[in-house]
């Protein structure tokens, strides 16, 4: 048991921090966020060719660096801090994870090297229904349908809230057999985003730093080779993919919460009222102390979940703890990020309400991240089901 970063992990973290501080400045974020694809192609190319971040946890057999989830999370924290506008999350934490967890050997061999080469990807599974189901991100959110036509599969449906859904080059689509319910009948497919019958559009979003797309599938024909794993049996894999993504998202959220704390403390030390820095007022100090408490608790939750995610990928006996760890980390970090953003805005006073200061970028990103892949309430209810609705536990 060891719960501190190794020297190598610390170095990865520090390198990411130094690079992002230089390239993901407020100015750079504001330029990228008003473009349609939502990121700077040149910067993404630099990341893919010079730093090789997109390959970090892809196994070496498929051209990746073969590092672990802890290393991935260490970088994501920094991306969250610096609001990096990039297709990293959708490509690596959704696309690559989907292939690693659910892909056939042939699919891994074909697509993972493409991702290592800079191809973008995302996961599409949330249908219109999810809002009607109270924003649930469980199996019921899969509403796209699939049926067999000879050797092929035909997909139909409308998928929403898909991160980088309008720009990603590869899609992993969740679909269910017509008439199936809940966790039954769900399959995953990997396909190129330019297949006939796919139309996509950018959904304008309040948070401009991560783009969401709507994908409409109209009689999209894919070959049997696109099916990931056994037909109709994909829910447990999809759940694991989403759990892994939530661990990654929690890391981003923790990084954002940290940055808000740092920005706010700096601001309150500068800002003078009543002839003294407002940082000296206990009302301000105590809010800042609560912000730091949330950040550090969030950090402990993220590191724990990252260790469990790694155990899951290594298929050890701790792998079964992934769903719980993901919901623990996501529920805490989602709320911590938003609360820190809320407090930061308040403590910045009037300037926190302006477009010029960066607080609003984090405030918006915090709410968007909270509602992406299930908010705190959703994940707590998920925990409650395990705690309260199953047969009495052993102890």
């Amino acid at each position, binding site marked *: 048991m060891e*719960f501190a970063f190794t020297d190598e992990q610390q170095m990865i973290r520090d390198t990411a921090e130094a690079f992002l501080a230089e390239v993901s400045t407020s100015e750079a974020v504001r330029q990228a966020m008003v473009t349609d694809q939502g990121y700077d192609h040149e910067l993404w190319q630099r990341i893919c060719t010079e730093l090789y971040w997109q390959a970090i946890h892809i196994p070496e057999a498929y051209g990746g660096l073969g590092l672990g989830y802890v290393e991935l999370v260490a970088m994501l924290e920094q991306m969250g801090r610096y609001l990096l506008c990039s297709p990293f999350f959708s490509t690596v934490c959704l696309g690559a994870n989907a292939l690693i967890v659910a892909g056939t050997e042939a699919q891994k061999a074909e697509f993972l090297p493409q991702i290592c080469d800079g191809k973008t990807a995302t996961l599409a599974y949330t249908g219109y229904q999810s809002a009607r189901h109270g924003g649930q991100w469980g199996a019921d959110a899969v509403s796209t349908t699939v049926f067999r036509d000879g050797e092929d599969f035909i997909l139909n449906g409308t998928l929403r809230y898909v991160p980088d859904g309008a720009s990603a080059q590869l899609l992993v689509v969740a679909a269910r057999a017509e008439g199936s319910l809940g966790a039954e009948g769900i399959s995953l497919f990997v396909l190129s985003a330019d297949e006939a019958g796919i139309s996509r559009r950018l959904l304008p979003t309040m948070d401009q730093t991560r783009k969401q797309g709507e994908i409409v599938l109209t009689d999209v024909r894919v070959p049997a080779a696109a099916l990931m794993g056994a037909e109709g049996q994909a829910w447990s894999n999809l759940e694991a993919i989403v759990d892994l993504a939530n661990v990654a998202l929690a890391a981003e959220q923790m990084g954002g919460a940290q940055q808000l704390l740092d920005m706010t403390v700096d601001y309150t030390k500068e800002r003078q009222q009543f002839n003294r820095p407002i940082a000296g007022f206990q009302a301000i100090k*105590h809010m*800042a102390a*609560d912000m730091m408490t949330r950040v*550090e608790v969030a950090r*402990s939750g993220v590191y724990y979940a990252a*260790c469990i995610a790694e155990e899951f990928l290594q298929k*050890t006996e701790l792998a079964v703890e992934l769903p719980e760890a993901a919901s623990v980390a996501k529920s805490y970090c989602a709320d911590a990020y938003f609360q820190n953003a809320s407090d930061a805005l308040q403590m910045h006073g009037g300037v926190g309400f302006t477009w010029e200061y960066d607080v609003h970028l984090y405030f918006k990103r915090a709410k968007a991240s909270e509602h992406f892949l299930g908010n705190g309430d959703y994940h707590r*209810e998920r925990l409650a089901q395990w*705690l309260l609705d199953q047969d009495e536990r052993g102890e």
Partner: protein
Amino acid sequence: MKLSFSPEDEQFRVEVAQWLQQNLTGEFEKLKFRGGPGDEHMFPHERQRWEQKLAEGGWTCIGWPQECGGRGCSIEQQVIFNEEYARAGAPGRAGHIGEGLAGPTIIAFGSDAQKQKYLPGIVAGTELWCQGYSEPGAGSDLANVKTRARFDEAKGKWLINGQKVWTSLAHESDYCFVIARTDPDSVAHKGLGFFLVKMAQPGVEVRGIQQITGTSEFNEVFFDNAECDAEDIVGEPGDGWKVAMGLLGFERGVSTLGQQMQFQNELNAVIREARANGADHNPVIRQRIARAHAELKIMRYNSMRMLSGQGGSDGSLQKEALIYKLFWATWHRSLGELAMDVLGPDSQILEDGPYQLTRLQSMYLFVRSDTIYGGTNEIQRNIIAERGLGMPKEPKVAVQ
């Protein structure tokens, strides 16, 4: 960063579990799940005998160096011991102030003579300790202690005069470590001494404080020319604050893991009640139970970070340690409220008259002390803001 334990450590876990299973029986059976915070007044003598039983097996002071009578266990082994101890339902440790606070202070700052005189009794579970810090006028402002220590040349002893308060288990203890002012003209944290004082003597009087629970774990301790041998001051006169602050660091060690297992037992009790009375169908209660569970889970890993990390070279605490007290105390207070809200109107009916509380009622009331003792939540926030974030210190008001 890795969660799993080595095969050797897993073997150690089996050894601990087996010992507990074989020994927490007979006269000790009734101690299971008893004697934790809020329940410390229960079975004091049986719990001290349990300390001695632990000592026979070599299970006291396991983290101390072997030359001090400890077992020299690694951090991992201490984590495992605490987990298995709580899993077995073994009782709250009567010797925890000696093992966790007095002993480590003597090991770090004490003389060889003090080590020889005091450590064996702590290891053997035969001598219990209490802590004499707070005073009526020195609560959050701990440095404002008025208790005085004057060296009497004729007797060759220190004479201590003053009053301490909130001294847990003083009535059961053999010794008290006391901060007292050695320089009568000094103020604040200068001019203090750290004394090891025998409780059984004419100059020491203990009076119980009846608490919100109706019970008395906490006491007032009055010193009226209480005597302390010349060699029983730790460090030099004037070093008292430094020694006392060094001791605060020990409070955040592996013992936090045992505390968390106690919390887990309490949360499990709340969950059992909710399942029994149907509160588990209430969506608000479900959210609150899940939140308590999630935060307790994270609390464990926060402790792992505290244990795995290195503090600053100046002895300062890392950030995860700075926030820890505020976090757990607030969590525990919320658990008390959750317990009552799960029980609903039943939460108001006592176990028995005239004022016998149920375990959960007792917990609900007792946790109100958590956000007050050992640095209130408000003091914790000042410390976090000042030491963790470099925000301005509270302005000093000139002493009149």
